[in-house]
């Protein structure tokens, strides 16, 4: 194991960067996809028409950035620790849907989201260990 760098390249900060990039990219993808939505055409199920939106391209850049910082994180932190921490994004995304996208989330949906988050919190570490072996 190398000695982890500090500052901008510290694995903790890069984990934070990765989570924020994923979070923002999800919201941008939703915004972008809605902008160019063409639900009448069957072709739009392929999602390719989503590329007409510039927000989708920004989201792609953020996804690439999150991928790079995630690889950097994995150089220093084991997957069975980094992966559970990265699940914070599962809490952030529904909150972002509500705050930034103005989605009306029913009580029933909040309950479902909460169950999924609790379930993920329980399995995150063992799943990361499984994933390391797969």
């Amino acid at each position, binding site marked *: 194991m190398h000695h982890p760098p500090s500052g901008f390249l510290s694995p903790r900060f890069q984990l934070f960067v990765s989570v924020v990039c994923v979070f923002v990219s999800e919201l941008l993808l939703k915004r972008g996809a809605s902008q160019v939505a063409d639900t009448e055409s069957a072709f739009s*199920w392929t999602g390719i028409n989503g590329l007409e939106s510039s927000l989708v391209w920004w989201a792609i850049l953020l996804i690439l950035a999150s991928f790079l910082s995630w690889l950097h994180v994995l150089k220093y932190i084991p997957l069975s620790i980094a992966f559970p921490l990265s699940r914070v994004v599962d809490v952030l995304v529904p909150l972002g849907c509500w705050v930034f996208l103005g*989605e009306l989330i029913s009580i029933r*949906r909040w309950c479902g989201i909460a169950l999924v988050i609790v*379930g993920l919190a329980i*399995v995150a570490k063992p799943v990361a260990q499984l994933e390391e072996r*797969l």
Partner: protein
Amino acid sequence: MNFLALTFILIALVSFVGGQLFLKHAMQPGQSGRTKRGFIGLLTAGISLMTVSFFLTLGLLQRFDLSYLYPFQGLSTIIISLLAALVLKEKLSLRLTVGALLISAGIVLVSIS
């Protein structure tokens, strides 16, 4: 929720998990007897599957709320544990089973919301 949408959600998830596994195998260091062509094959398979998953998700996002679609990603965790049980003959621990049940129950609630 109609059958078509559910099918697309599942295909997007399975191709995402498949893509991850291909990429992981491509990146695994020091595998003896692996050719450069083998590496490129694995990498291409991984990137193609991730791309399929990305575009299907874009198609779904044109039709559904993000707060509706996002919880389904929890299923990828369950798919991984099932794969591990199948491929690695892992026993599913109590912790994994309980978590998987909670995630599934949550998905059901979200999908009827």
